[in-house]
């Protein structure tokens, strides 16, 4: 058995970034990962940096997320992303080239104005353009676009580079990464936790559960029953396109995000449901969502019609029943921290810093008092003893 200061479960973007922050702070960190690092939600996500307020529902999503509550978190994350590449001394293909959120109906146009109030309140600068002005700014936009919000802070980072860069930084600062080590047991051991993964056993006073869609399964090993609702969503990549699409394009009322990545492929997503979620294998992309998502992409960006779809893939998303992030210590389980929920990629630098503060007792950079795991707990803390 080894000892550590912090055991992080999950080497996705949250685990990697938290490991980097904590290792830099001098903590002895061990990261346990069930498979290869960054291969699940963090490796299948679109890599959008959402700074302007997001639309509230994925296709098929039951409960709308609280877009207004997101805005201050987005603002804080946006500021932190600015320094990620310098800080890690690595290229993650970070691009802050701005983004449009389009509206097609009068109701959607009203929503653009509504969300601008939230953006203004936290100092996110946005501008609402009418359809013609939007098409002048981005000529690829189609005729149905009635208005669009422009935010120059929206951007992209390559998710396949971000997690490895954070992990490399963590390892440089002394963290130990153990891939292919699924955690099978978490027990209380004196004042600490004893975590078992394959042949490894690590004892540490702090455990951070950032296992994404498996967050509740890991928590259950520690006797904590959390109500999570993981889903699988899918992404689509076209062949490389010579048409340059310099900005992120999203839709306020429907599931759509389109951007061009550094290699030239267009990435089309928007939270469309995959054919199925398979937490024990690989989730499959489905045809209905593929057809629906691509048709929507063509309506907003007609040039996409001329391209070929190269591949589709699905990835799990660690959603909560109320669609809001979860971050904090589990009441009644001292030193057992969880972090996850939607938009984790955008929030990664923020949640990493927040987790560092929670471990060291410092004041978190944003107010997270309403985002803790209490609201997801299925048992009272007393009952699980």
């Amino acid at each position, binding site marked *: 058995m080894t000892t550590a200061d912090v055991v992080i479960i999950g080497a996705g973007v949250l685990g990697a970034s938290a490991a980097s922050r904590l290792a830099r702070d001098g903590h002895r960190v061990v990261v346990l990962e069930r498979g290869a*690092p960054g291969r699940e939600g963090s490796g299948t996500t679109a890599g959008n940096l959402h700074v302007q307020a997001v639309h509230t529902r994925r296709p098929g999503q039951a409960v709308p997320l609280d877009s207004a509550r997101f805005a201050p978190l987005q603002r804080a994350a946006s500021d932190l992303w600015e320094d990620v590449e310098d800080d890690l001394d690595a290229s993650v293909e970070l691009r802050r080239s701005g983004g449009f959120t389009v509206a097609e109906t009068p109701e959607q146009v009203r929503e653009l104005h509504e969300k601008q109030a939230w953006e203004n309140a936290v100092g996110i600068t946005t501008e609402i353009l009418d359809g013609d002005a939007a098409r002048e700014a981005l000529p690829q936009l189609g005729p149905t676009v009635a208005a669009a919000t422009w935010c120059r802070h929206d951007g992209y980072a390559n998710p396949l580079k971000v997690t490895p860069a954070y992990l490399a930084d963590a390892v440089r600062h002394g963290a130990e990464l153990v891939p*292919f080590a699924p955690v099978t047991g978490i027990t209380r051991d004196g004042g600490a936790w004893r975590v078992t993964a394959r042949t490894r056993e690590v004892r540490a006073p702090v455990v951070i559960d950032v296992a994404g869609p498996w967050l509740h399964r890991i928590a259950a090993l520690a006797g904590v029953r959390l109500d999570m609702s993981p889903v699988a969503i899918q992404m689509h990549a076209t062949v490389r396109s010579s048409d340059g699409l310099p900005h992120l394009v999203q839709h306020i009322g429907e599931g759509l995000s389109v951007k061009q990545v550094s290699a030239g492929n267009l990435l089309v997503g928007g939270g469309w449901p995959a*054919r199925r979620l398979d937490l024990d294998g690989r989730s499959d992309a489905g*045809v209905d969502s593929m057809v629906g998502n691509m048709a929507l992409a063509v309506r907003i960006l007609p040039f996409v019609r001329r391209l070929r779809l190269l591949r589709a893939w699905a990835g799990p998303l660690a959603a909560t029943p109320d669609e809001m992030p979860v971050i904090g210590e589990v009441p009644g389980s001292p030193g057992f921290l969880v972090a996850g929920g939607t938009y984790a990629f955008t929030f990664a630098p923020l949640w990493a810093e927040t987790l560092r503060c929670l471990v060291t007792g410092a004041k978190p950079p944003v107010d997270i008092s309403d985002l803790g795991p209490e609201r997801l707990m299925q048992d009272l803390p007393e009952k699980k003893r």
Partner: protein
Amino acid sequence: MSLPEERDVVIVGGGPAGLAAARRLAAAGLSVTVVDEQPELGGQYFRRPAPEVARVWGDHRPEGRRLIDAVRAAGVECRTGHLVWGVDDDGRTLLVSDPAERPVRLRGRYLIVATGAYERPFPFPGWQLPGVTTPGFAQHLAAADHTPVGERVVLAGSGPFLLPVACSLLALGVTVAGIAEAGRPYRPSLRALGAVRHPARLRELAGYAARLARARVPIWQDTVVVRADGRDRVTSVTLAAASAPARPVRTVAVDALCVGYGFRPQADLARMLGCAVRTDPATGDATPVLTPSGRSSRADVYVIGEAAGIGGAPTAAVRGLSAALDILGREGHRPRAGELRGLAADGRRLERFKSLTDALYPTPADLARLLRPTLPDTATLCRCEAITAGEVRRTAGTAAGDVNATKAWTRAGMGPCQGRECGFAVSAVARTSSDVFPSRLPVRPVAVATLLEMAGEGGPA
């Protein structure tokens, strides 16, 4: 778009296996559709010569013409130029695009996957030069177009297929400067093949050998390509002993170089249909788990021909017939007198031949071991995304032998070929346990316009 048509049997792939199955099933009165992406049936083995070529030079495989004619005469619906690119969310409707890239849905009570094989290339510095091809491409060019791949050619790689390709090139007047074989199959010499008592098909190999010996084509055994050079086209190839790739033994002037290490089953569609696959212990290839008649883990899906495991055209035909008879049995038809017994005997004979030839040549696992050290870090490994061997090697620690992690961390295999070209090499270099990238929608790139028409939003612009 119209609703899917339901047929008794839909066969994907019109090569020797698919055609054999189609003819037998249609003869028994079942409604059969054969879908093939090529403009004419035949697959690679029975690839039809261009009409102009056939007029002047004749048909290199007239039995292919006869088989295709018989299939059409039996009433099989032949959808050529149709590309199967996916499976609908119901898990059984095939998503197809027609020659005008309009969407078509096909559904069969039985599905037969006869999608054939990919060649197995392995990179070396210079493999992206014009004039470097696979043996299969050279053969296709020679047979279907009567066009030599070059004037002075080296064939390299491993396996029996290099011999007939060399003979096809000789017949076109090409100078075959030599054949580099990575293994040592021809001991003590190529002629020895004919000296022992072997099944007929090994004698066929010996026939090729004799032809090559007459033309004084040297065969260099235990020899691999370590680089190709040239400015706008390959002009020379450097060879080395497989056991000592760092010490080149000869450089040969060429204007074409054909390198291939045999074939891999093309099982993407079978995997997408949910057929269980296993990693073949001998080849490392993802191979569907099948009954002797080709039935997969899904009772309504059969996998036949090279997609079921590399065996050659005669084996493919036997597998096609076996699957057809299995389906007919389930449909209450009785086989013809002696049909099952004859088929079983053919199967046994071909299996003997296959184990004999397999024993002669290095296995893909041997090849991966053999070839891995020949590839310098600077060599391009994935041509679509321009990823070098060094980039893949550097991720070995963190990707920990997971081929998909390797792909994610390097982009190797993310381009238009989706790993069909480079999959074997990426896994060999990354030392992964399996060389299969996941089978993903679409199996082949599909026009967004085709998807739009499926959404009912109008056809191609």
